[in-house]
Structures are given as C-alpha cells and as structure tokens.
C-alpha cells in the first residue's frame, strides 16, 4: 500500500481531495465534543467543574505520545526504505507533536493549580511530558540545522530513533525518581472515576485532535513537496 502513495504528484492529488473532508470531520467532532464536555456532562464530585479541563488535557497528552511514535515510525520507514514521503511526514509531525506536548503541560498545570495550590509539581507524568517536549525541540532544531535538507532529514531520523529507545528508559527513571521525592500532598491526577457521560466527550475530543493532526499533516506535506520542487527548479537554473 505504501508504494501507491510513493509518487508525490499522485499524493498531491489525493491529498487535495481528502483535505476538505478531514477539515469538516475535525470541526464536527470538536464541536460535539466541546458541547458534551462543557454543557451536559456532570461535574466531578471531588474536583467540581475543574475536571472539564480533562477533556482537553488528556487528549493532548495522548496526542503528544502518538505524534512521537508516528514520527519515529515515519523516520524509520524513511531511513530504511528511503521513502521520500515518510521523511516529510516525520518532519511535518514534529511541530504538531510539540504543540500538543506544550498544550498538555499548560492545561496540566492549570488543572493542577486548584488541587495542588502550585502551578508546577514535579509529578512523574508532567516531568516526562516536559522531557518529551525537549526531545521534540531537539528534533526540530536538528532538522533545520543543515543547509542541505537531505542531511537534516537523515540526521534527525537517526536522532528520533535513538530518542524512541530512550523514551521508555527516561520514563522509567523519572517515575522512579518521582517516587523517591514523592511530596506527601500530591493527589492522584486521574482521580475522578470516568463515568459514561464523561467518556463520550473525552473520546470525541481525542478523535477530533487526531483528525486535526491529519489535516495539518496533509497541508504540511503538500507544502514540503512543493518546496522540494522549487529547490530542484532553482538548482536546475543554477546548473542549467
């Protein structure tokens, strides 16, 4: 199946057809998710209304992990089978992943403030999310650090694969480190037992974030294919 998309111009055609559908799906899903989440789902007996932040925080955290793994898979395919589109997909996923990681951290600390009384607690999951953010920023910095884009893509694909092996190790170390410095007052983050009416908005929002990711990915891949064509046309002008 992969090779059917290998040809960039065919991909451009399919992408431009699919894009409006994906866009409408995202808007629809997000709309219903927000409506259910904000308007007709109960407040949590312990945390009250602040649990509504969960409908944004948890999907963002899921997306942060999802984007890093899909980036690693795309980079792997790009490196092993020299698949040009896979490299571009990895490069296009990074900013989306970084944005979701930052959102997860931001909403996490907003959610934590009423409970813990401080904006930031070195909770195991939040700290791992912070490290993940720097893995993303390192990737984005490396990919733009070379004049020759092919060099940038190759180096950063190797980095994201090295990073992928390290993510579980870092996660383990941070969890272990966190239990060591466990401040007594920390409330379990995922305290509220999710009853059925809360589950729906959560899943809808998660789905909306995924279609949003595909939407941005399609736009970015089309842009990267065109910028490659531009580079080749310019090179041809130079070399004649």
């Amino acid at each position, binding site marked *: 199946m992969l090779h059917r998309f290998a040809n960039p111009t065919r991909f451009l055609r399919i992408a431009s057809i699919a894009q409006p559908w994906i866009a409408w799906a995202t808007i629809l899903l997000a709309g219903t998710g927000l409506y259910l989440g904000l308007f007709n789902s109960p407040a949590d007996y312990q945390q009250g209304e602040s649990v509504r*932040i969960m409908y944004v925080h948890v999907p963002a955290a899921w997306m942060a992990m999802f984007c890093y793994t899909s980036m690693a898979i795309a980079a792997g395919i790009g490196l092993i089978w020299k698949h040009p589109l896979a490299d571009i997909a990895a490069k296009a996923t990074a900013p989306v992943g970084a944005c979701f990681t930052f959102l997860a951290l931001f909403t996490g600390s907003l959610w934590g403030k009423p409970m813990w009384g401080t904006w930031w607690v070195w909770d195991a999951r939040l700290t791992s999310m912070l490290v993940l953010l720097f893995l993303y920023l390192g990737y984005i910095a490396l990919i733009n650090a070379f004049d020759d884009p092919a060099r940038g893509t190759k180096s950063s694909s190797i980095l994201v694969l090295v990073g992928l092996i390290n993510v579980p190790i870092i996660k383990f170390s941070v969890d272990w480190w966190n239990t060591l410095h466990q401040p007594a007052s920390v409330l379990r983050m995922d305290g509220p037992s999710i009853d059925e009416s809360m589950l729906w908005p959560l899943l809808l929002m998660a789905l909306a974030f995924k279609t949003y990711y595909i939407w941005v990915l399609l736009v970015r891949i089309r842009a990267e294919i065109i910028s490659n064509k531009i580079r080749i046309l310019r090179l041809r002008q130079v070399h004649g």
Partner: protein
Amino acid sequence: MGSYKDGKVMDQIRDFINMEGYGGYVWPSYLVTAGLMIILLVITRRFLKANMATLEALENTAKEDVE
C-alpha cells in the same frame, strides 16, 4: 415579566462562566488550546500558499526560457 426571566437567564450565564469558581482555570485552558491549534493551522496553510505562489512564478519563468 421579561426582566425576571432575563434576570434568571443572566444568572445562568454568569454561573456557567463562573463554573463554581474554577472558570479561571477551565476557560484559559480551552482558549489557549483552541488558539494554539488554530495558529499552527494558519501558519501551515500560509506556508503552503506561499510555496504554491513561488512554484507558480518559477514555472512561468521556466516556461518563458523555453519559448
């Protein structure tokens, strides 16, 4: 009559926004999430539009050279 109903409606909206005092946390997280996602989308689309324009221009100059 209207005012009574309006009063009640106004209270509902105020309670809704207030969210038992948590409004100060819930609304910013929603707004920032929506804002950042929209900004990223707009930047990417503008990047695409700019590339399409330069490609257009380059292909025209290439065509002129050929003619």
